[in-house]
């Protein structure tokens, strides 16, 4: 009987202990929406540039977090743009547009989209090789600038351009992959460098190649 009293006391004490408050405010914030990082629903990019998009999740407590590599990315038209595995968007045409969208798994309503418009070179002759070199033993990063349909006439051409030398004994061209780490996701592009070897004449040709445009431009160099 003594033990029963003790046990009863313990159980009643514990039962009273189990009478407590119920929390009615969520302890964890929740997802409100996801969005592609851009101030407007349209993103304009040059046909000779690349674009590294970012995505953000917004919470109901007005905070946010980067989720660029956690959402699914898709393009509406793969003939216009190319989306690489490292989430870099590269134009495949000189002019056009495509819709870039994000979603999260199969959750409906957790999605966003962005219209990507490509600003093209306004004609095949509206670009120029601005690099110049004339002595042996020098190196020079090859550079071309274009005149684009938005009025920008000194835009450096980074993507969709390749360079060749007519005489590699006079001047050779080497390539290097350059990483641009100034954005949220590192992107890469190919940099072409000309090296003059011996005196002579050489033609350096730049070729711009898109699905809807294939143009080349040659510049003559005399090396002393």
């Amino acid at each position, binding site marked *: 009987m003594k*033990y*029963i009293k003790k*046990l*009863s006391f*313990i*159980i009643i004490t*514990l*039962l009273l*202990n*189990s*009478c*407590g*408050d*119920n*929390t*009615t*405010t*969520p*302890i*964890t*914030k*929740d*997802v*409100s929406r*996801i969005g592609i990082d851009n101030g407007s629903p349209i993103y304009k990019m040059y046909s000779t540039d690349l674009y590294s998009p970012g995505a953000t*999740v917004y*919470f*109901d407590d007005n905070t946010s*977090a*980067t*989720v660029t590599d*956690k*959402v699914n990315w898709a393009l509406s038209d793969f003939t216009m743009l190319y989306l690489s595995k490292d989430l870099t968007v590269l134009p495949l045409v000189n002019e056009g547009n495509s819709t870039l969208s994000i979603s*999260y798994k199969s*959750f409906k309503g*957790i999605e966003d989209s962005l219209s990507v418009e490509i600003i093209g070179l306004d004609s095949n002759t509206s670009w120029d090789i601005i690099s110049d070199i004339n002595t042996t033993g020098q190196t020079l990063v090859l550079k071309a600038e274009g005149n684009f349909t938005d009025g920008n006439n000194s835009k450096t051409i980074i993507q969709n351009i390749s360079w060749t030398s007519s005489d590699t004994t006079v001047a050779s061209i080497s390539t290097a992959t350059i990483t641009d780490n100034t954005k949220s996701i590192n992107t890469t592009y190919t940099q072409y460098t000309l090296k003059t070897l011996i005196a002579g004449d050489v033609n350096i040709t730049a070729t711009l190649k898109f699905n809807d445009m294939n143009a080349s431009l040659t510049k003559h160099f005399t090396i002393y």
Partner: protein
Amino acid sequence: MKKIILFFFFCINLFAQSQTYIGMNYGGTYENFTTAKATESSPFVNLKAGYGVRDAYAVEIYFEYVQNKSKIFSSDPATKYDGNKYSIDVALVKSFDFDIYVLPFVKAGFGSGSFKVARTLDKHISYGSFNLGTGIYIPITKHYDIELGYRYKAISHEGLNLISQTIVHTANAYSAYVGFNFRY
């Protein structure tokens, strides 16, 4: 070899005396979260089935229903409470006969459960638990007994999906209950 033979006879002895039993418990549970400032206090009921000897050992399985009166996970303003909880647990019971009319026991086991929530990416949350319990059986007849008990549960909830991260909440739950068992 002797130990194996003794264990063999021990098992036969237990099996020979064992009874199947069913029963029901009713009580209150108090859940205190360790990862956030939140508490839940709810009544619960469980239906159980077991097999064993009342004054020695038993294995027990029970299905539990907890009437949830808290809103700890749901973020939807239109939702008043998180969903009621349903769980299944398995426990091993060791009871003792000290010739004091009642039979004290201890229990240890594990289980899992689930409940509905109203969140953007989570509609159900599952949880796993380890539980420890103690109490007494009060025999009424050879076939019936009353059970008074106290149980502690260490609960780990499924992570909440925020896309950028997953947040896991853990809690300690303390329950006191009264129940009955029918053995046949």
